[in-house]
C-alpha cells in the first residue's frame, strides 16, 4: 500500500497524520535553457580551430614545396652550369688540342716538304748527270756500231771466199734437197692420209646407209607385225561380239521359255483349284442325295411293316370270331375289352416302337454323320497336305524360275557392261592409235623438213663454193695480170749500173779505208 502510494504520487510523501503531505523538491534542470546555442557555439569554435589549423598547414606546405622546388632549381642550375662549364672546358681543351695538333701536323708537313725539296738535285748535278748519260749513250752506240761492222765484214768475207761459198752452196743444196724430199714425203703422206680418210668416210657412209636400210626394213616389219596383231585383235573382238550376241539371244530365249513355263504352272494350278472346288461340290451333293434316299427308303419300309402287322392282326381276329361264335356273346365283352386293351397296348407298342425307331434313326443318323464327318476330315487333311505340297512345289519352282530370271538379267547386265568396257577400250585404243599416227606423221614431217633443209643448205654451200672458186679464179687472173704487168715494167725499165750504194756503205764510204779495230 505504501509502496503503491509512493509510486503513484511521485514527489508527494504522506505524513504520519491524515492530510499531511510533503512534496519533494524538484531537481534543477539537467541542461541549461540555452544548451543548443551553447553546443552550436562549441562546435563552431572547434570547426574554426580545425579550419585555422588546416590553413596553417596549407601555408606551411606551400612554403615547404616552394623551398624544395627552389632548392631543386638551384641544384639543377648549379649542375647544369657545372656540366656546361665542364663541357666547355672539354671543348676548349679539345679545341686547343686540335689547334696544337694542326700546328704540329702543319709544321711536320712543312718540314717534310722542305726535306723533299732539299732532296731535289741542283743544276750542276743535273748537268753532270746529263753529261754522264750522254757519255753512256755514246758508248753504247759505239759498241753497237762495232758489232754491226764486224758482222758486215764477216758477210763480206763470206761473199768473197769462193771455197766457203761453194761449201755453203753445197750444204744449202743438200739441205734444200733434203727439205724437198721431206716435203714430197709429207705430201705423199698427206695424200695417203686423205685417201684413208676418204675411204673411212666411204665406209662410214656405207655403214650408215646400211644401218638406215636395216632400220627402215625393221620398221616396216614391225609395222606389218603390228598391223597383223591389230587385225588379230579386231578379229577376236568381232568373234567375241558375235559370241556375246549369241549368248544374249540364248539367254533371251531361255527367259521366254521360263516365262512360258511359269505361265503354264500358274494355269495348271488354277485348273487344279477349280477342279478341287467342283469335286467338293459334287461330293456334297452325293452326300445329300444319299441321305435323302436312305430316309425315304426307311420311311416306306416302316409304313409297309406297320400295314402288314395291322393286316395280320385283323386276320387273326377274324378267324377267332368265326371259330368261336358261340362263345361270342359271352365273350364279346371280354373280347372287346381285351381288344381294346390290346389295341391300347398295340397303340402303346406302336408308339414305343415309333419312338424307338425314331431313336434308332436318330442314332443311325448320328453314327452316319459321325463317320461322314470323320471321312470328310480325313479327306480334308489329305487334301490340305496335297495342296500344301503342291504349293511348296509350285513355290520352289517359281523361286527357281525367279532366280534363273535374276541370273539371266545379271548375266545380261554383265555382258552389257563388258560390251561397254570393250567399246571404251576400243575407243581409247583408237585414240591412242590416232595419236601415234599423228606423232609419227609429225616426226616424219619434221624429218622431211630437216632433210629438205639439209639439202638446201648443201646446195647453198655448193653454190657458195662455186662462187668462191669463181671469185678466186678471177682474183688469180687479176693477180697474174698484175704480175705480168709488173714484170714487163721491170723488164722494160732502162738498166743502169749506177745504183745507189747501201746506206751503211754510204755512211762508211769515204772513211772506211782506215778500218777501226
Amino acid at each position, binding site marked *: 500500500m505504501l509502496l503503491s502510494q509512493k509510486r503513484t504520487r511521485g514527489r508527494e510523501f504522506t505524513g504520519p497524520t491524515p492530510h499531511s503531505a510533503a512534496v519533494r523538491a524538484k531537481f534543477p534542470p539537467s541542461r541549461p535553457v540555452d544548451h543548443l546555442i551553447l553546443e552550436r557555439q562549441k562546435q563552431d569554435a572547434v570547426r574554426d580551430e580545425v579550419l585555422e589549423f588546416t590553413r596553417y598547414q596549407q601555408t606551411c606546405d606551400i612554403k615547404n614545396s616552394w623551398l624544395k622546388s627552389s632548392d631543386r632549381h638551384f641544384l639543377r642550375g648549379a649542375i647544369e652550369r657545372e656540366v656546361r662549364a665542364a663541357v666547355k672546358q672539354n671543348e676548349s681543351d*679539345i679545341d686547343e*688540342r*686540335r689547334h*696544337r*695538333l*694542326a700546328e*704540329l*701536323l702543319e709544321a*711536320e708537313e712543312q718540314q*717534310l716538304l722542305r*726535306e*723533299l725539296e732539299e*732532296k731535289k738535285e741542283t743544276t750542276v748535278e743535273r748537268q753532270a748527270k746529263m753529261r754522264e748519260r750522254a757519255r753512256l749513250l755514246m758508248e753504247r752506240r759505239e759498241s753497237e756500231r762495232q758489232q754491226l761492222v764486224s758482222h758486215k765484214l764477216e758477210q763480206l768475207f763470206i761473199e768473197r771466199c769462193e771455197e766457203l761459198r761453194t761449201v755453203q752452196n753445197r750444204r744449202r743444196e743438200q739441205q734444200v734437197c733434203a727439205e724437198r724430199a721431206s716435203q714430197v714425203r709429207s705430201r705423199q703422206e698427206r695424200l695417203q692420209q686423205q685417201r684413208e680418210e676418204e675411204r673411212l668416210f666411204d665406209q662410214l657412209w656405207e655403214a650408215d646407209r646400211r644401218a638406215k636400210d636395216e632400220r627402215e626394213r625393221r620398221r616396216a616389219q614391225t609395222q606389218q607385225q603390228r598391223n597383223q596383231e591389230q587385225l588379230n585383235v579386231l578379229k577376236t573382238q568381232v568373234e567375241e561380239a558375235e559370241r556375246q550376241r549369241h549368248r544374249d539371244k540364248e539367254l533371251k530365249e531361255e527367259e521366254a521359255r521360263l516365262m512360258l513355263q511359269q505361265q503354264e504352272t500358274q494355269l495348271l494350278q488354277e485348273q487344279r483349284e477349280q477342279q478341287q472346288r467342283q469335286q467338293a461340290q459334287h461330293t456334297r451333293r452325293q452326300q445329300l442325295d444319299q441321305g435323302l434316299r436312305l430316309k425315304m427308303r426307311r420311311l416306306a419300309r416302316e409304313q409297309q411293316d406297320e400295314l402288314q402287322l395291322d393286316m395280320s392282326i385283323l386276320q387273326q381276329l377274324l378267324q377267332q370270331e368265326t371259330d368261336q361264335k358261340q362263345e361270342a356273346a359271352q365273350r364279346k365283352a371280354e373280347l372287346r375289352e381285351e381288344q381294346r386293351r390290346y389295341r391300347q397296348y398295340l397303340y402303346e407298342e406302336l408308339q414305343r416302337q415309333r419312338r424307338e425307331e425314331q431313336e434308332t434313326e436318330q442314332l443311325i443318323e448320328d453314327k452316319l454323320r459321325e463317320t461322314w464327318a470323320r471321312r470328310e476330315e480325313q479327306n480334308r487333311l489329305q487334301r490340305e497336305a496335297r495342296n500344301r505340297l503342291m504349293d511348296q512345289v509350285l513355290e520352289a519352282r517359281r523361286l527357281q524360275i525367279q532366280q534363273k530370271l535374276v541370273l539371266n538379267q545379271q548375266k545380261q547386265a554383265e555382258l552389257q557392261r563388258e560390251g561397254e568396257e570393250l567399246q571404251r577400250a576400243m575407243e581409247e585404243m583408237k585414240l591412242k592409235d590416232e595419236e601415234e599416227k599423228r606423232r609419227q606423221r609429225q616426226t616424219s614431217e619434221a624429218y622431211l623438213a630437216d632433210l629438205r633443209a639439209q639439202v638446201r643448205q648443201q646446195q647453198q654451200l655448193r653454190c657458195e663454193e662455186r662462187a668462191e672458186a669463181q671469185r678466186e679464179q678471177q682474183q688469180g687472173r687479176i693477180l697474174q695480170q698484175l704480175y705480168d704487168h709488173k714484170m714487163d715494167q721491170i723488164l722494160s725499165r732502162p738498166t743502169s749500173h749506177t745504183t745507189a750504194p747501201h746506206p751503211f756503205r754510204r755512211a762508211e764510204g769515204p772513211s772506211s779505208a782506215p778500218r777501226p779495230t
Partner: protein
Amino acid sequence: MEVRFAFLAEWYDPTAALLRRYQLFYYPKDSSVEMFDVKNQRIFLRRTKYDDIHQEDLFVGNRVNVFSRQLNLIEYGDQYTANKLGSKKERTLALIKPDVVTKIGDALELIYSSNLIVTKAKMTKLTWSQATDFYVEHQSKPFFNNLVQFLSSGPVVAMELMGDEAVSIWRRLLGPADSAVARREAPQSVRAQFGTDGIKNVGHGSDSLAAAARELEFFFPSTIGHGPSNTAIYTDCTCCIIKPHAVSEGLAGKILNAISAAGFEISALQMFNVDRANAEEFYEVYKGVVAEYPSMVTELCSGPCMVLEIHSTDTQQTFREFCGPADPEIARHLRPTTLRALYGKDKVKNAVHCTDLPEDGVLEVQYFFKILDG
C-alpha cells in the same frame, strides 16, 4: 642450288639506339651479300656484289663491315653453314709466358704462318693465386711451385687462336714441353727456338677443346667480370694502335718485332673490337684537323685492332719518329725504314696509329686500357 652461307648478325643503330638483327647471306660464287631484316620480315639489302668481304672473315664472333655498317656475327643462320664453316673451326688459348713476352712478334709470325687467326689478345700479369687457379690441374706435380712462381713473375700474353684444328696446330707449333727434348725432336718448334727448360718453355697451349673453353673463360670471360687485369701503367707512355688492316693482313707480328727491335718496351697489349661511337670519340681530336677523319674512324672500327702501350725514355717523340710520316708515300721517299713506310698502304691504312700530341699519350692509353677495358 647455289652455295650460300647464312649468318645471324647484329647491328647497333646509333640513331635509334637499338640493336637490329639481320640475316646476312653470303654467296661465295660472286662474293655478293644479301641482308634480311628479321624483325620486319623484309629484305633490307638486295643481293649486291661486295668485294670487301671474304669467306675467311665469316665466322661466329667476328665483326664485318658491310657498306660501312659494322655487323656483329652472332650465330650461324642455318645448319648447312654451321656444318660447312663451323665444324672445323676451333678455338684455343695460347699463353705466352714471361720469358718470351719480348719476342711476342715472332710468336705471332708463327701463328699467322700456320693459318691461325688471333681473335683476342691481352697482356696481363697474373698474381700467385690466379696462377694457381690457372694451373689447378698440375697441383700435384712436383714442378707446380716453380711453374706458378715463373708464371706470376712477369707479364704474360694470353691469346685466343681460331682456325681449323687450332688446338692441335698450336700444340704442334709449340712442340714438346721440355725445350731440350724439343730441340732434339722438333727443331722447328717454338720451344726449340726460344725455350730454356721444362718450365721456361715459351708458352702454354690447351690440350683439349674442353680445356681450351675453360682457359679461355679464365682469361676472356664471356659473361661477367673482366678476367685478369691489364698491365698498363699510364706514365711516360705513348699509345700505338696496329690498325685492323694490318692485323688482318698478318703484319702484327712484323710490326711488334720491329718495335721491340727498335728498343721500345711494350708494357701493355690488348686487342679491341672498337665500336663506331668509340672510334669517333677516340679520334675526336682529329675531327676537323685532318681531312681523312671519317675514313680513319671507319678503318678503326672495321675489325679487331691491337693496342699497345709503349714505354721508353722520351717515348712520344721517338716513337712518333719511328712510325714515320702519316702518309706512307712520303714516308717511303723520306724515311724508308719507318713502320709506315714498310707496312702502310695509304694515308688511312697506314699500318699504325701513334700518339701525335705529347700530352695525349697518357690520355689515349687511358682511353683504351681504363675506359674500354675497365
